[in-house]
């Protein structure tokens, strides 16, 4: 179980005895990943988002909290945590928010963060985030419906329709990748890719490139990421589901939004853009020398860099373009993305089959 080796090796480094029970290692692993990888990433991405957006819009962006405003995310985070609830507890809202959160953070277990940092590496690993995204959409819809306000109803239904329309092309694009790799394990998907861009799945054949584009766009639609965020930010219903959330629940919801964006970027990098593969045989050398933590760290940096570039590209597109309407998004997903996805699937299977036959 190499997944837990690294957790126990980290713990041993602190002087604790060798801990073998999976029931302790697994939650510790999840908490570790969440606190030390996801939360800092959200801080960095939030800061960069605001600064880069400000640059596009001829403004300055945060520049008060810390030098050049680098502590702005911390300041916002702590401020929002202190906000008290201003309405009565609505148990149906709490329930759906909890389900929404659980579905989302269950994917932390399958997050592919490095060759040795895979907690769950099975053939269903790739699909868990996908189903989780659908459950999140369901949870958001029911959250909206339970709010008993018009903003909630409309926001909730819009999220559900958008998610359903984006799910199909995303799924088909993921299958294209698996066809080439021969398996759906994270380790398998990354093993067939190399460090150099030309050996990434995306550029191996034109059908995979189409699958990349389809996956990128349909992921945005599935997870309601700007610029496809009409379901969650439309001014006519004051932002839909989030209109009646405030304080800590709003932080939870917003963290969830960021996390789904992040998840999408990480999975796209791993599936199509070479994942954590390091160049110049660094990984083999470090493994031989036994410097496992350094290897983890470098692979993580490689993966995070690729995800960050993807995230910034999407933010760029979102800030410059207007928001399309929900029904225009769903039309686009059903009538444009799905045919392209199927075309890519047929092509990818032909290519894979050719390779086998010849």
């Amino acid at each position: 179980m190499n997944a837990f080796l690294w957790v126990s090796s980290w713990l041993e480094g602190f002087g604790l005895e060798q801990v073998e029970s999976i029931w302790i290692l697994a939650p510790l692993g999840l908490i570790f990943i969440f606190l030390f990888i996801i939360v800092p990433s959200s801080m960095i991405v939030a800061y960069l988002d605001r600064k880069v957006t400000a640059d596009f819009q001829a403004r300055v962006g945060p520049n008060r909290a810390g030098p050049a405003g680098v502590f702005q995310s911390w300041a916002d985070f702590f401020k929002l945590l202190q906000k008290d609830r201003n309405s009565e507890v609505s148990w149906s809202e709490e329930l759906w928010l909890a389900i929404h959160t659980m579905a989302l953070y269950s994917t932390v277990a399958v997050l592919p963060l490095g060759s040795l940092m895979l907690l769950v590496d099975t053939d269903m690993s790739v699909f868990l985030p996908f189903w989780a995204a659908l459950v999140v959409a369901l949870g958001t819809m029911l959250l909206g419906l339970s709010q008993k306000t018009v903003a909630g109803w409309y926001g909730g239904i819009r999220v559900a329709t958008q998610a359903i329309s984006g799910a199909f092309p995303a799924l088909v694009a993921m299958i294209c990748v698996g066809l080439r790799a021969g398996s759906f394990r994270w380790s398998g998907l990354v093993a067939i890719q190399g460090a150099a861009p030309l050996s990434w799945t995306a550029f191996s054949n034109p059908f995979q490139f189409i699958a990349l584009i389809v996956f990128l766009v349909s992921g945005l639609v599935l997870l309601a990421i700007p610029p496809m965020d009409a379901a969650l930010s439309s001014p006519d219903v004051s932002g839909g589901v989030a209109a009646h959330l405030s304080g800590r629940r709003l932080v939870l919801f917003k963290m969830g939004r960021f996390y789904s964006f992040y998840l999408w970027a990480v999975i796209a990098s791993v599936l199509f853009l070479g994942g954590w593969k390091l160049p110049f045989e660094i990984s083999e050398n470090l493994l031989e020398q036994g410097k496992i933590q350094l290897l983890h760290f470098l692979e993580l940096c490689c993966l995070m860099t690729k995800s960050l570039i993807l995230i910034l590209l999407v933010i760029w597109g979102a800030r410059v373009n207007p928001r399309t309407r929900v029904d225009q998004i769903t039309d686009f997903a059903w009538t444009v993305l799905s045919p392209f996805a199927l075309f890519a699937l047929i092509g990818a299977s032909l290519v894979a089959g050719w390779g086998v036959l010849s």
Partner: protein
Amino acid sequence: MSSREILKTELAKLALGPFDSALPGPLRLQMELDGEVIVSAKVETGFIHRGLEKAFERQRWIASISYADRLDPDGPIFGELALCLAVEEIAQLTVPPRAEQVRVLLSELGRISCHMEYLVRVARAVGSDTMIHYVLRDREKILDLFELTTGARYSINFLRFGGIQADITEGFIERILELSELFRIRVKEYNDLFTYNHAFIQRTQGVGTLSSKRVRELGVTGPNARAAGFSADIRKIHPYSGYDKIDFEVPVADLRGLRSGDANDRFLLRLREIAVSTEILRQVAENISDGAFCSRKQGQEIKVPAGEAYVRVESARGLLGCHVAADGGPMPARIQFRTPSHAHLAAIPELLSGTRLEDLPVVLSSLGLGVAEADR
């Protein structure tokens, strides 16, 4: 046949307002929704009724200028100009040419500023933040010019009966010429950013269509009417304040029966109007004449003889009319404004019925409503 007959559903009721980010001002919309489609909408106004018309009658003539420029907070110059022209007609005052030209400069600056605010509102409705900041950054230059000359950014209170309050500041003309150069480039930038953007076209084309027939029946005037093909512009039909000496072309949508007056047309028309106003600014600034800036001494009490006048001014939103009645006393007997936003408000219920709820901000912002001037 609606889905109500197949699946037993009810219409949802939604009341937006009076304060909402989707609305252009304080008004309440009571809507009935069938799914995402608005079935009927009712407009309630009066939330910003300030009793301006009564206030006019209770103050002296000179104070009425301050009230008139608060008629429409987005285009204060037009209210002042209409009032001053009307009172000058009653009192038979002549306005020196320099003052007339400065009035034209301020009117066109006000028109550009109002249209830029319109661009910002449409960009917000459509969800593009970048456009908002670019346009507001450029609008600051116009507001700086207002401040340079009149002392205030918005409610300028600068016109007086017989001319303007004070002579224009040194550097004003030069900065206007610089500004007209800058805006020529900027209009092209806004064009590139939005006009051909596929997402923007998808959001605005076919949305909120006002056919030319309805424009005529509702009495819609100004850029909204010109976007539907009607070329009436008061600056050409009843020229005032020296507009007949300026060479400019009124932009009109050339529809040839294809589409008529949807949100995209109204947006594009206002972009073209900014370009035309820039040209007028340049012409007038290059040919500004010297001389007096007011035909009456400042601070003098004005004696308005008994009489009546009705003048029309082309404001940024449409035809602004001012009916003034004087009875020879120190206070006006009646000042009534005919504002263009009434017709636009009357168009809202029919524009909204049949549109999707998500297009509501786009429809409302594309009309360029001035709720404050409709309520007075």
